[in-house]
């Protein structure tokens, strides 16, 4: 359930639309971070743009109707070329810069677009900002590196190589001991001078050797900060968090992996060197996770997470550590599961590890994260089931289509079944929700819940469930379902209209009007 307080009409500040906007912005962050680890950003840029446009329109609608929109305190941001009113080039919202939501999301979108077309300019932009931030915070390298990592964790680098290269340049700049004092106290007005000076420093230092001792020190800061993040990942409390934290680590770990490859040449100190080796192993596990999700997408399989692929690894660990410590050894060496899951499977043997049925929050991603995850892997929420079709149904499909019995045929059949089933389910949900007979309310609710069990991320099923909940007077569920439905499919005109209707029923007139405005966007799909 969405944590959303039931509100009264005079407390419109904590608005429903404000909450929707917060979740939309969270999605932008997820899209950036998850795309970086899947490497699928280019192909999905149209979808990304559309998500951004709807977010932008939602913010505009809220403002138009004088609904206060949430502030985004402590979020890192860098300037964008078209919508920026600060003298500072970048910083954290609240403490360094005062940035409105439209400015923030413009930074996301404009820079993302730049990332596809002009990757050099993109890197230079972020490098310049990170150096400027550092110089204007007492030349404190640690703070500068935290800022750059935070930008990655916030989704500003949808292509991971842009991040690793920016971070590498940043570290090298300081390891070259280049004089960057020209940045001190400058503002965006001096942008041209900054660019020129920076280019001059690049030219001057092109042939300079790195101060390796210093390089090792700066590397030590990166390692220390990444170790903190690794700890955060291990402490994940849900699959959503685990997915996000793994993706967030991918960029920094990939960078450290590159450094590892050159560690001898760079004369990296012993402790750092050994930690780099460890990080490289973790990066490999993260790569394997991303690969696993890519395979699920290619085979149209449920986006399920389980441990059954870890049998071999577990068995090897058990053979090596027969004293019963295999699970701890395996999880400390390898980034295969967070601590909470380790405790859930503590009593499993290596043979039963894959059979442990994890609870919902660990097995399946939530409605909040599913669309970004889909964008990162070229999928659509409506085409995702929680469990695969039964084998006999797939086999019958192969026979009916007269295909040879190969794995490819099964994939073809699965895709076709999904397409048919998904639209049939949407129609079924719509029919059900229109049931006006109060005597059937309980059955209808149950039936809709069953559909949602099989298609947990079907936006239309969610939308109809929300509408139905409203007719039964369950406003809290209605709010949650409708919110999820527009998060999973922001293009549904009907879903936004349903939000408007619910807001009217609750007599939140400004919000009703704002949602209606969003529903009138010309590029939405009218699927009546």
């Amino acid at each position, binding site marked *: 359930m969405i944590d959303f307080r039931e509100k009264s009409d005079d407390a419109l500040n904590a608005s429903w639309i404000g909450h929707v906007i917060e979740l939309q912005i969270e999605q932008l962050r997820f899209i950036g971070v998850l795309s970086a680890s899947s490497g699928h950003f280019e192909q999905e840029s149209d979808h990304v743009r559309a998500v951004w446009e709807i977010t932008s329109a939602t913010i505009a609608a809220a403002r138009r109707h004088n609904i206060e929109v949430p502030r985004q305190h402590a979020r890192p941001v860098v300037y964008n070329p078209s919508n920026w009113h600060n003298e500072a080039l970048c910083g954290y919202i609240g403490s360094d810069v005062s940035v409105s939501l439209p400015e923030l999301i413009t930074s996301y979108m404009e820079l993302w677009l730049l990332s596809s077309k002009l990757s050099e300019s993109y890197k230079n932009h972020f490098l310049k900002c990170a150096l400027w931030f550092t110089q204007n915070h007492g030349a404190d390298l640690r703070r500068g590196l935290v800022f750059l990592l935070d930008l990655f964790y916030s989704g500003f680098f949808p292509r991971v190589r842009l991040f690793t290269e920016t971070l590498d340049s940043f570290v090298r700049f300081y390891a070259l001991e280049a004089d960057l004092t020209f940045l001190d106290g400058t503002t965006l007005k001096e942008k041209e001078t900054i660019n020129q000076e920076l280019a001059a420093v690049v030219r001057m230092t092109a042939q300079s050797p790195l101060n390796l001792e210093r390089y090792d020190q700066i590397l030590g800061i990166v390692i220390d900060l990444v170790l903190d993040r690794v700890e955060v990942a291990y402490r994940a409390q849900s699959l959503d968090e685990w997915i996000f934290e793994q993706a967030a680590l991918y960029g920094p770990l990939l960078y450290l992996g590159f450094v590892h490859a050159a560690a001898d040449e760079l004369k990296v100190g012993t402790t750092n060197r050994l930690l780099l080796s460890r990080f490289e192993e973790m990066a490999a596990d993260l790569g394997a996770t991303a690969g696993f999700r890519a395979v699920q997408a290619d085979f149209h399989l449920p986006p399920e997470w389980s441990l059954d692929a870890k049998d071999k*690894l577990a068995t090897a660990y058990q053979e090596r550590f027969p004293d019963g410590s295999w699970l701890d050894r395996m999880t400390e060496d390898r980034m295969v599961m967070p601590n909470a899951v380790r405790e859930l499977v503590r009593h499993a043997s290596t043979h039963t590890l894959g059979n442990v049925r994890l609870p919902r929050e660990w097995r399946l991603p939530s409605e909040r994260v599913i669309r970004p995850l889909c964008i990162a892997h070229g999928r659509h929420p409506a085409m995702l089931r929680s469990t695969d079709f039964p084998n006999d149904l797939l086999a019958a499909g192969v026979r009916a289509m007269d295909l040879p019995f190969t794995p490819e045929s099964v994939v073809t059949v699965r895709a076709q079944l999904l397409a048919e089933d998904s639209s049939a389910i949407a129609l079924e949900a719509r029919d059900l929700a229109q049931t006006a007979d109060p005597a059937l309310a309980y059955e209808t609710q149950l039936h809709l819940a069953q559909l949602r069990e099989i298609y947990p991320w079907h936006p239309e099923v969610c939308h109809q469930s929300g509408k139905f909940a409203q007719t039964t007077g369950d406003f809290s569920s209605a709010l949650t379902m409708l919110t999820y439905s527009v998060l999973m499919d922001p293009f549904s005109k009907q879903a936004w209209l349903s939000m408007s209707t619910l807001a009217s029923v609750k007599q939140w007139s400004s919000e009703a009007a704002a949602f209606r405005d969003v529903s009138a966007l010309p590029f939405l799909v009218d699927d009546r």
Partner: protein
Amino acid sequence: MKCLSLIKIAEEAAYLAEGKRYALGPITTPRTFKEALRALDDRHRGVYAFVAFHPVADRLVSEYIDLGTLGDDAGPAIVALFLVTPEAPRVPREVHASDLQFGVTLTFEEHPAYDLVRFFFPSESTPRLPGIVFFDRLGAARSAIYVLLDAKSKDQVMKLARKAFEAADRCVGRTPGLDDGRLHLDFDRFAAQLLKASLPYYRQGKKGLRAAAYLTGAWLNKNKSAIAAAIPKVAGLAGKAGGGDAE
């Protein structure tokens, strides 16, 4: 400051040496702790420094470690080791004050940190504690120097430790005539530097070291799960001016 179990550090070094970091390589190759230590010795470019203290009698030293600068003070060429309780973490994590209570109920005579110093310097004049033992190898040390940390406050402990580490750091380099592409601590120069910095130290001769090496092997094995290595945090590294602020 974070720390990591010496066992883990040594195992990582062994993975690297064996070149089988991937997939199941690390665990399918069985190796003893001693073999892992040898891999670490081969891999390490520099020296080890064991900080010997009793958590109660030498409270100032544990307070110094709790300040979190030990890893930074030691620098990349020196792996700083100390005992933690109940076990050194097998995944890097922050050092807490409670970690530094190893052997809190033991007397000086019984405390393993004191034992180690006695192995290296067993003569009648066993040096006073606390202090730092610098030695070149975990496997079989060939040189060792003990620097006394005689201080009245934790800040003074830090000052003395930094001086000792800096002196050692200045003497780490390639050994002339020894073309193994590695860095070693020149203990003669180190001793001279300590003298210059007026830091009291003890130096062990070759004969004593052989005995010490024998005893430390057993000592390391017995205490291995409590030995932690400090991971540099690199706090307060400023932009242009070079790092390693001397005083």
